[in-house]
């Protein structure tokens, strides 16, 4: 009798240990920065179609509030859903949703940036820790999207451009919703087409945005168009 009990116990423990791993597969969202459809790396000049020699040395942004849908109905949402993507750290450019996520979905929604509640909630940890270089000390709030680099068209000293886009207070909110219809289920590649961001830049007017305001809000509105599912 005790042997049988023991066997059952061992079996139960085994199931408990391994069940979550086999239940469902991971969903990986891989974000690939591009310039006119070509993959780019940091500090490597993408060949702009307009002949502009432009290179990026920093690309860092928050994606948050991932929600999965099927036929317009919410099927799963990630808890404490905040991710800092940093081109300098390849691992951060892929977001892995562990088992427990929906196994059938046809649309993923998320925010570029952080919601307003996060911006007024005091010190937070993980990707939201203020040591990540994405928090404004002298005008409280997160930088939602940071892109820096060089463009020969940029009239700033050393051709350096710096766009730090953030701000949560109306009328200059900068968090932006993205809706991605998806067909792939496990490995989803999302292109981040950065050329579209620069199409909205008039170098004479703007090459430095470092605080919340009208310009940050205007540029934020152009960000959702950067994100699209990679077409084979």
């Amino acid at each position, binding site marked *: 009798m*005790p042997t049988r009990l023991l066997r059952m116990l061992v079996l139960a423990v085994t199931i408990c240990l391994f069940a979550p791993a086999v239940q469902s597969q991971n969903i990986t969202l891989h974000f690939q920065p591009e310039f006119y459809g070509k993959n780019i790396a940091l500090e490597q000049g993408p060949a702009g179609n307009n002949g502009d020699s432009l290179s990026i040395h920093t690309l860092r942004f928050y994606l948050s509030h991932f929600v999965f849908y099927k036929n317009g109905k919410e099927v799963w949402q990630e808890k404490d859903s905040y991710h800092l993507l940093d081109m300098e750290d390849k691992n951060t450019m892929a977001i892995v949703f562990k088992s427990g996520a929906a196994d059938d979905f046809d649309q993923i929604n998320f925010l570029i940036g952080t919601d307003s509640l996060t911006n*007024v909630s005091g*010190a937070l940890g993980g990707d939201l*820790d203020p040591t990540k*270089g994405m*928090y404004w000390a002298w*005008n*409280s*709030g997160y930088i939602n999207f940071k892109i820096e680099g060089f463009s020969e068209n940029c009239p700033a000293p050393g051709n350096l451009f710096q766009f730090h886009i953030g701000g949560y207070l109306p009328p200059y909110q900068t968090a932006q919703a993205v809706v991605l219809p998806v067909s792939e289920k496990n490995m989803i590649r999302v292109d981040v087409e950065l050329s579209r961001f620069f199409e909205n830049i008039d170098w004479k007017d703007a090459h430095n945005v470092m605080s919340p*305001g009208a310009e940050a809000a205007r540029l934020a509105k152009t960000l959702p168009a950067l994100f699209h599912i990679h077409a084979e």
Partner: protein
Amino acid sequence: MRNKLPIAIAFFCAVYCFCVAATSVFFPEPAPLEYPETWPFPAYDFSKNPLTKPGIALGRQLFYDPVLSKDSTISCSNCHLSYTAFTHVDHALSHGIHDRIGTRNSPALTNLAWARSFMWDGAVNHLDMQALAPISSPVEMEEKIENVVEKLRRSAGYRAMFFQAFGDSLATGERLLKALAQFELTLVSANSKYDRVLAGKEIFTDQEQNGYRLFKNNCARCHSEPFFTNYGFEKNGLPVDTALRDFGRMAITRQPADSLKFKVPTLRNIEFSYPYMHDGRFRKLGEVLNHYAHNKELGIELTSNEKVDLTAFLLTLTDRTFLFNPDFAFPR
């Protein structure tokens, strides 16, 4: 033997559970904020950062430690001295790293749990995040929070204190800021003569009583009791300093209506928090009262006798138990 095996397994399970519990359950000694019953609930959300004895002790250690600055010369206490209501006594504008001078007068740190925004222009929206501003300012500590965290991680003393406060010896930006906030939250001033009069333990002199009446008629709209600030932003009629060109709140909201609006400072311990105003332009309380005494914009009209009585009342806001509280002083 066969009978003993399940018992052995059960024993190991129990030991395992105990070990898990011992490492994951962490109970630092709580130290809830004490304040008068008649006061409103604090604005600070303690559920996200409950006050604990080791948390406050760590925050106090950090508050007095110049490790927060780039060259380890400037601590919070350089500009916020406990004996002068946590202001920079005798300095109109504070000096930070390499004796660089800032643009504003160091504010008193008092009753911060009820404040909804911080700095003279409300640039900071949460007490936790306030310390980031002086740490990063090139005229104050000129340091990056990332570097501060690295320095703390190298210190065995701090590793022990972080473990006691947060159940984990690893310093992070979040924990550093929360610990500092914990100490600052304890800076409650609620035992001035004014407080004791309200509690029925003492009585005002006739002069103080008249001053209190004048205060309620002329000052209390902005310097509201019991904190002697409405924690809002107001225009007080001071002309802009042409050298500093500081337009206050407008820099944050970008609304022209907020030009020259500054945070209403508390009047608690005003006897010790000189010099006064956002740029410290008035060295004496009398100068402040002279500024307000014939102010058509604010609708204030005070005779010289009334100014004397009002001053007598303002001096009842001095809280010696706050000023000389050993728990607030340099940790020894």
